[in-house]
């Protein structure tokens, strides 16, 4: 699928790695995003944070090696790790070589000092979750709402688990999960670098007869236990298939939608929103702080879920059409945004068809389900969603 104002996509295979280049005649910059099939759900039991530390170590380059000095922005999510960068289209080979090496799990040797420096950085990030328990609310609710295991994986990370990780743990994870055949590389930029892209990808050794594939996952750790500091929060969750676009499902929990219904009553606006995406399912989470104006919310949820929710949300989606169009275009406004969006939408596994609303209160640090409404198989007309086309 191309974004607005695209001159098309060129596809390549670089030693098993699927590469897509969206050609944008108007672009001045070049951008790349590598999606690796390794996420927090792959952390071994008791060693939460291993995938995150692997991301940090793979994001480094040997000071004198190819691609040194090219800044990569990397994020570890539940089921994937993304490495992205914007570059000068005059010279793209160093950036590409850097990402090709990461896709194959190659990284510069990290001595003890480098390893500890990156561990310290991960610890600082983890301390933020300790300091702000709300950062763990999304994972906590997603894991309670959805059947897919591991949706709370990011939230399970603690300073203690990060301190237990050894270089050997990172190596063991990377060797099974940083595999080209399971990764995707998205590129976008002007036409001028295409010959350099082709030449650089051409240097990658062809796929061997018995190519490495992503290994099996280590045993998962225990789910996220109670989180202090969240009691009294109310939340609505919507479980839906990952990688399935649906304006109607988006509208169900919109501020102006039939459940939140804050268009005429701004005090009903939620205090926070997040989406936790796994491999097969994603969970949209909307929450209200204790004391917020939530009277009638449970009734509206029940009436919507047991009534003609597709018609109610469909009206909202139609009214919101121009805003959605602008937001879609904005997500594709630059080469970097295009590759980020493509990486976010990349489907790495078959989606789970469950669609379900639920209503929660946090008590003693644990989500207590107050009501649950399976939305059933979606009706004709795409109201329940259309599979997102991969790039």
């Amino acid at each position: 699928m191309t974004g607005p104002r695209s001159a098309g996509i060129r596809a390549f295979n670089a030693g098993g790695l699927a590469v897509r280049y969206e050609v944008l005649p108007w672009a001045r910059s070049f951008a790349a995003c590598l999606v690796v099939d390794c996420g927090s759900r792959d952390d071994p039991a008791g060693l939460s944070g291993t995938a995150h530390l692997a991301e940090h170590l793979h994001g480094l380059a040997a000071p004198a090696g190819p691609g040194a000095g090219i800044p990569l922005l990397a994020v570890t999510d539940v089921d994937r790790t993304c490495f992205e960068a914007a570059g000068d289209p005059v010279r793209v080979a160093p950036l590409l070589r850097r990402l090709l090496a990461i896709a194959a799990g190659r990284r510069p040797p990290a001595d003890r000092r480098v390893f500890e420096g990156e561990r310290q950085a991960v610890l600082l990030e983890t301390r933020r979750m300790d300091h702000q328990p709300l950062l763990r609310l999304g994972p906590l609710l997603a894991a309670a709402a959805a059947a897919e295991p591991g949706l709370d994986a990011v939230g399970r990370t603690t300073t203690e688990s990060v301190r237990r990780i050894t270089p050997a743990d990172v190596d063991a994870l990377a060797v099974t999960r940083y595999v080209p055949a399971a990764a995707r590389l998205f590129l976008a930029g002007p036409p001028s670098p295409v010959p350099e892209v082709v030449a650089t990808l051409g240097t990658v050794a062809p796929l061997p007869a018995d190519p490495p594939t992503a290994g099996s996952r280590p045993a998962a750790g225990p789910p996220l236990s109670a989180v202090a500091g969240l009691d009294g929060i109310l939340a609505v969750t919507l479980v839906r298939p990952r990688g399935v676009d649906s304006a109607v499902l988006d509208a169900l929990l919109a501020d102006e939608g039939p459940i939140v219904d804050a268009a005429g009553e701004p005090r009903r606006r939620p205090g926070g929103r997040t989406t936790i995406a796994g491999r097969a399912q994603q969970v949209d989470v909307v929450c209200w702080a204790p004391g917020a104006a939530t009277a009638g919310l449970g009734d509206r949820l029940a009436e919507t879920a047991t009534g003609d929710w597709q018609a109610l949300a469909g009206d909202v989606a139609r009214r919101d059409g121009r805003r959605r169009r602008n937001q879609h275009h904005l997500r594709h406004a630059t080469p970097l945004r295009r590759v980020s969006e493509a990486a976010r939408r990349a489907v790495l596994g078959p989606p789970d068809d469950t669609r379900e609303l639920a209503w929660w209160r946090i008590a003693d640090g644990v989500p207590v389900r107050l009501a649950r409404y399976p939305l059933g198989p979606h009706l004709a007309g795409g109201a329940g969603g259309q599979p997102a086309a991969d790039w």
Partner: protein
Amino acid sequence: MTAAARPGAARIVDLPAGHRDDPPGRAGLAGLAARVLTSPANGGAAARAAALGWHTRHRLSARCSSFAFWSSDPADLDDILGDLRSARLPDGDAGLAVLDALRARQAAASGGRLDTPLARVGRVLERAAWGTPEEDVLGSAATLAAVTAADLRHALDDLTARAWVHDEAAVPGPPAAASPAAAAAEPVAGRGWSGGLAVADHPGSDARVAVRLAVADPAPDLLDVLVEVLGNGPDGRLHRELRHRHALAYGFTATCWAEDRTASIGATATVAAENAAAAVRVLATTLRGLAGGVPRSEWDVARWRSRAGLLAALDGPFGLVDEARRRAHGERLVAERCAAVSLLTDPPPLCLAPDPPAVAAVGVFDPRHRRQLADAYQEIR
């Protein structure tokens, strides 16, 4: 439209008054006027932007209040000035209630209380660099209370009548040196480099520290490339020093300034509060190390990064309209900077000024941390 055209279109509307134009005793007027124009409840461009999902940006500077709008449909923005002018503070009690709410929000934000940690450390660093109190950009509860509804209505009518509209698709004309934005970088009267240590409380699990050094007569574009030598990501000097040599920091940034006739270069680090003093030492040493020269290979990569950042900025939703605005105001274009960096093949020398460094720290510090920061400052000054 063909694939050769970039998606969407953008306009900028500049109102010719900024926070330094606020009347005596009514500091915060420009900020309040901007709040009226950016609140969807008051109608106008903000209401259309919210309904249609436009991308928007507002910047309040010393002499200008600048509103940027982006839409996927260029026709949406054909009468953007008319849209902006149609925003209204309601009449009567309703207007007074809106004004009270805007005052409360602005008072809460004044003094940087709602700043992100990075913005906060930047403001405190300004104070350390110049030795002057932070500018009263948004006013105080008292000065905001002195702004009446009539003041606001008059300001809105007057400023929107004198507004400038910048269009990325417009044919370039001659620069207009007297335009409002041209005055945005005007020096603060009587201000000169001071240097010093400034520490401020800021909630959160992390602390931020910043060090800024004055530079003597840098070659054009030198500091832009040196910022990339320091690096905002993995593999720059900051990453190696802060993370790997000293295991201190999660994040870091580098930036440079050319204002008030004093150029400077600086860096920030996100650290645990107990590591703030150590990070100050590392930042100062790393910044001063730039004066020792940059190897050619490191310089070339930094130039690549510098160009990449400039090109990515041009590709942004407001990239071209910002460029049109710079052209209209006779400012240097990003495209010109990009070309200049390409030609800067040999690293020019960097000469640091003998002035004391400016150091800022924000976070939750106990007395011991504060003593350590003071000791670190004495060491590096």
